[in-house]
């Protein structure tokens, strides 16, 4: 039986893991390679490394960090941030990533999704979407607005419609972040996640708002997520993936255990 995935997310800024609330007020949370290895050891099903400042500062992804992090990692490893071209993606794959996540650049030029998929396979392309509910829209959830550049810039695109286009162009997965919930630890946006998950045939990874075990159970149930990403819950020794997964398994969610 397929299990739900718990994905440890490392937001990286200038070679260090950081965590902020609603994309601002960031604090230091350690070395990416060390953190990734620890998460894998502690039961994370996958590791995502997002270079959160790469896009707006115009920097290339930190290939050296990727190389160091990938070296002893034998679970799936996804890297995002600053990937603008298929060549950028190729460098990240060569440094040891299994998947790349594209966000701003894919919205600016959606054919980027096709290009990476053609060269590396759909399984290697994750389209990351940052969305905020639009209370002025007739359906604030399905018409949540998509933002780029780390949540700084509105695009006018609607979340469900963009997720469908990404799938048609050959995305293998959607990484959906609720900007309303991100960093708050008050729970995932289950309505938003379910709206996207029901609209596409590819897996949806829910992100933003994790604070308790209940939140994960909700997003796998009501939110129809295939995987959930967590950052703040794992840092500073608050919890481990294994502990979280054991509790979720007891609550009836199918998990990779023992791990």
């Amino acid at each position, binding site marked *: 039986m397929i299990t739900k995935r718990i994905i440890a997310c490392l937001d990286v800024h200038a070679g260090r893991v950081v965590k902020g609330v609603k994309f601002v007020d960031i604090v230091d949370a350690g070395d990416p390679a060390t953190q990734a290895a620890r998460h894998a050891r502690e039961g994370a099903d996958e590791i995502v490394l997002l270079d959160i400042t790469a896009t707006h500062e115009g920097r290339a992804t930190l290939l050296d960090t990727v190389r160091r992090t990938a070296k002893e990692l034998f679970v799936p490893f996804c890297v995002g941030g600053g990937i603008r071209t298929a060549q950028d993606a190729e460098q990240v794959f060569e440094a040891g990533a299994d998947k790349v996540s594209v966000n701003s650049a894919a919205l600016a030029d959606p054919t980027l999704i096709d290009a990476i998929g053609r060269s*590396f396979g759909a399984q290697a392309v994750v389209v990351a979407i940052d969305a905020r509910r639009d209370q002025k829209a007739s359906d604030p959830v399905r018409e949540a607005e998509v933002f780029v550049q780390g949540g700084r810039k509105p695009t006018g695109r609607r979340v469900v419609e963009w997720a469908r286009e990404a799938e048609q162009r050959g995305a*293998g997965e959607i990484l959906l972040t609720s900007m309303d919930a991100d960093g708050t630890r008050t729970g995932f946006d289950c309505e938003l996640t379910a709206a996207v998950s029901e609209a596409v045939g590819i897996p949806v990874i829910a992100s933003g708002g994790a604070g308790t075990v209940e939140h994960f159970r909700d997003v796998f149930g009501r939110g129809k997520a295939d995987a959930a990403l967590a950052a703040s819950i794992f840092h500073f020794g608050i919890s481990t993936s294994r502990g979280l997964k054991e509790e979720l398994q007891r609550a009836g969610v199918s998990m*990779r255990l023992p791990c």
Partner: protein
Amino acid sequence: MITVIDYKAGNLTSVLKALRHLGAEVEVTDSDLGLVERAERIVLPGVGHFAATKRLDDTGLTGAIRGAIGRGVPFLGICVGMQWLYSGSTEALEQPGLGCFAETCSRFTEGTEKIPHVGWNSLEVRKGSRLLADVEPGEFVYFTHSYKGPVTSDTAAITEYIEPFAAAVERGNVMGVQFHPEKSGETGLKILRNFLGARP
């Protein structure tokens, strides 16, 4: 020496990293038939589209691999590399596979479940598999694919997603896994270690 075949359909880094982590001496080729002829073991990784395996025919690697398999050289196909061991795949009907296994790979049946099958799923290992020796019932491995091989007498492990399918095949020195052992944590490393220890 392990020869890893590169047919330019995706990323080999993770496979090479895992084999080297286990102490293997690895050579990569996209056309050198000599490296296939001298290989002690051959690994054919693969992600992406079945049609990309045409490159193996164009470069003469298909014939060289067939010859090596005939001489008893242990062979491991991963993901599309496993599917290539069958007669073909409905993903690219014009492109034949190696034909070690007579069946054809096909897409998961459309329905309520998502396709591709992405994530960690468990293995039901059949008795006698050398590749999957010591893999306990219910151990998990990482999959990402939309096409799969049918369950037959050559199936070494079965996984269920939408329907039961061949998670691994094994006949003598010819082995294949639909999942990614290089991304399957300790279980995956154990399986690769078994392959590296398999006697010709």
